């Protein structure tokens, strides 16, 4: 009744192809943006930004990146943690080698370097498919982590093998290092997340996205209708790795400030982001955000409710957290194999017809 398209007339193709064709959706989206940009920065403190917002925004970028590769192009990858590490170490090397250049450029450059590495490790995808490709990308994961642990040049020969982000500013405001303000790091990451989502959305609904989806649905058919698998697959690896690299750079420089490759970018990270993509919904921009929110926010929420609110012992809570999140993942995948995004789509469809479904 409230949520409907009746009365909305579209007079151009652009309007017809809009991301949010319904007025209500458009306004909700704009309202969300306004709240995110103009309201949240005034309300958050160190806890909210470091425990909730930064991980959510950064994982959302990584999930967007992986979704392009797995969800849109159908190339299974388990190398996400390794590619995030490339982004982090690239950002570190750039930050320490060129301290006079703005941090924002370093983050983008780190993404570009990761894109290059991603293409390199994407080459096997031209020959191998499915599970076999997953194993090949797994090799990338282990190789990259090993490389950053093994070659001291990557961590500037520091005794501990850790990399830590020196202080860098943007317009005179500290973005990395210990003296940052919650709102500054939040807005910095928000800008990257919004830009990534915008780029990803427009790439995937254009010709490039259709090529990826054609490859995903049936690569031989795609080749017959004129899609070049070489460029389609490698561009998917490049774009995906770019986003993952940006996420890795932000994860290291802005969120944690110091990382150790084996711990921060191990195989667990690859699985975590793959779970986000699967639970959120393959081939959906909204799904990337929903998946990241689910995997990042739910544990924090459970912890605060059970340990903080109810005062249960922390070890019991930690075990329960794993059990609840695990059970929810199974329940979600059984109830809705296409993820949270599909749940959202179904809800919207039903809302359009409500209250007269027949």
């Amino acid at each position, binding site marked *: 009744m409230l949520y409907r398209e009746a009365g909305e007339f579209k007079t151009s193709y652009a309007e017809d192809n809009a991301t949010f064709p319904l007025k209500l959706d458009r306004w909700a989206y704009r309202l969300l943006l306004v709240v995110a940009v103009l309201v949240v920065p005034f309300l958050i403190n160190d*806890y909210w930004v470091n425990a909730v917002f930064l991980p959510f925004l950064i994982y959302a970028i990584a999930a967007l990146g992986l979704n392009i590769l797995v969800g849109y192009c159908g190339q299974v990858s388990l190398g996400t943690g390794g590619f995030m590490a490339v982004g982090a170490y690239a950002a570190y090397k750039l930050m320490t080698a060129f301290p006079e250049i703005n941090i924002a450029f370093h983050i983008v450059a780190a993404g570009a370097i990761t894109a290059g590495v991603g293409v390199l490790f994407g080459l096997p995808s031209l020959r191998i498919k499915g599970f076999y490709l997953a194993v090949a990308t797994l090799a990338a994961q282990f190789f990259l982590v090993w490389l950053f642990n093994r070659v001291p040049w990557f961590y500037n020969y520091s*005794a501990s093998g*850790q990399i830590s982000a020196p202080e860098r500013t943007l317009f005179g405001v500290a973005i990395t290092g210990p003296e940052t303000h919650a709102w500054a790091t939040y807005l910095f990451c928000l800008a990257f997340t919004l830009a990534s989502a915008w780029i990803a959305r427009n790439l995937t609904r254009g010709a490039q996205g259709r090529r990826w989806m054609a490859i995903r649905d049936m690569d031989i058919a795609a080749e017959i209708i004129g899609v070049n698998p070489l460029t389609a697959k490698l561009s998917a690896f490049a774009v995906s790795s770019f986003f993952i690299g940006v996420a890795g750079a932000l994860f290291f420089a802005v969120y*944690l*400030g110091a990382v*150790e490759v084996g*711990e921060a970018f191990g195989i667990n990270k690859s699985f975590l982001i793959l779970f986000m993509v699967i639970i959120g919904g393959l081939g959906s921009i909204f799904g990337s955000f929903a998946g990241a929110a689910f995997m990042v926010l739910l544990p924090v929420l459970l912890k605060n409710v059970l340990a903080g609110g109810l005062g249960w012992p*922390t070890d019991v809570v*930690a075990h329960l957290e794993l059990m609840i999140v695990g059970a929810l993942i199974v329940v979600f995948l059984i109830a809705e194999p296409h993820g949270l995004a599909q749940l959202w789509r179904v809800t919207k469809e039903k809302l359009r017809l409500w209250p007269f479904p027949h």
Partner: protein
Amino acid sequence: MKTRLAGLALGALLAVPAVAQELVIPDLSYRTGPYAANGIPFSDGYQDYFTLLNERDGGIGGVKVRIVECETGYNTEKGVECYEATKGEGALVYQPLSTGITYQLIPKATADGIPIHSMGYGRTSAANGEVFPWVFNYPGTYWDSASIMVKHAMEVSGGSLEGKTIALLYHNSAYGKEPIRTLEELSKKHGFTLTQLPIDAPGQEQKSQWLQIRRERPDFVFFWGWGVMNQVAVQEAVNVRYPMDHFIGVWWSGAENDVTPAGAGADGYKSTNFTGVGKDFPIFADLQKYVVDTGKAAGDGSYLGQVQYNRGMYAALLAAEAIKTAQEIHGTKEITPAQMRDGMEALELSEADYAALGLPNFAPELKVSCQNHSGPGKALIQQWDATAGKWTAITDYIESDREVIDPLIAEDSEAYAKENGITPGCM
């Protein structure tokens, strides 16, 4: 509505002094995951000591201690979350029990003005208090332990290590990599060959490293492990029949939980330690009476007297004594984190103090100063007796080789100061 709001406001006003009547100590523990075997006893000891002070003495200087426990799982992301969650409660000192989390927190806590006590772990060069005013690692550092282990090896092999080989088996992380610098220097000084054998976390898989040890037969194996990795390493050493008395662990690799799974084979395994072992100290009677028997213990009370429990208790003792010192310096009962830092920097413990606290001959005498945040840097060597099922100290407290370590600390801390634009100086 108005009266209710006014009541709330009044309540809030009244609540402020009530909340301040306590000393908040966060405990970033890990009771889950691959490091829980070592994390649980340490955390139990840490909390039980404060509970004892609350129950027996009514707190420290009459102010009760409130412990805020937060589970990190030895994971840096969760560690950061725990830090942010607890710092707002007025946390006095952080004891993260993880080198990775310590590295993470050093810049953050320095900016927020909260001291970190990374007791025998973390960044070694934090020993230089002029560069790291907020970080303390007394009573010793990894480099102290490395040097003490070399000294012991030298003693075992008759005074010289010339031409010998030492294999360093380590957790492939900041924690395990810390001693390499010192061991390299020491290998130059004493003429032994150092082989490095990294093990990736969490360390259940170390067959290839032990195969290499079996092939090369190094004269000594030094071990920097933690959590489940310790148990696996001891078992593997038994499997390849490595002489256990030539297998020496750092103080984080020598607890009951690490050696018992290997059974009788683990007999003779050695490690360093900076506290006494066992339950033969008067304090345990009090702990039993006030904490365990009243059901207020953090765990089930089964770890009392074990290596990690005693160490957690010692960490709490050092924090409590620093609070007392701070209370004396500043003449106030409810201290702030900044005052806590002053207390930690002025901390001094003599043998008489330990005895008065119910722990005679438990730990080396301690004196912290602005230039020296790492304390005495002494440790003893303890050996596992599998038949009796306990650790026994086989040496007295050994002093580390300051001649080698001090220049290394100066060099590393200066590099850090330069990188981060810190002008060294006392606060």
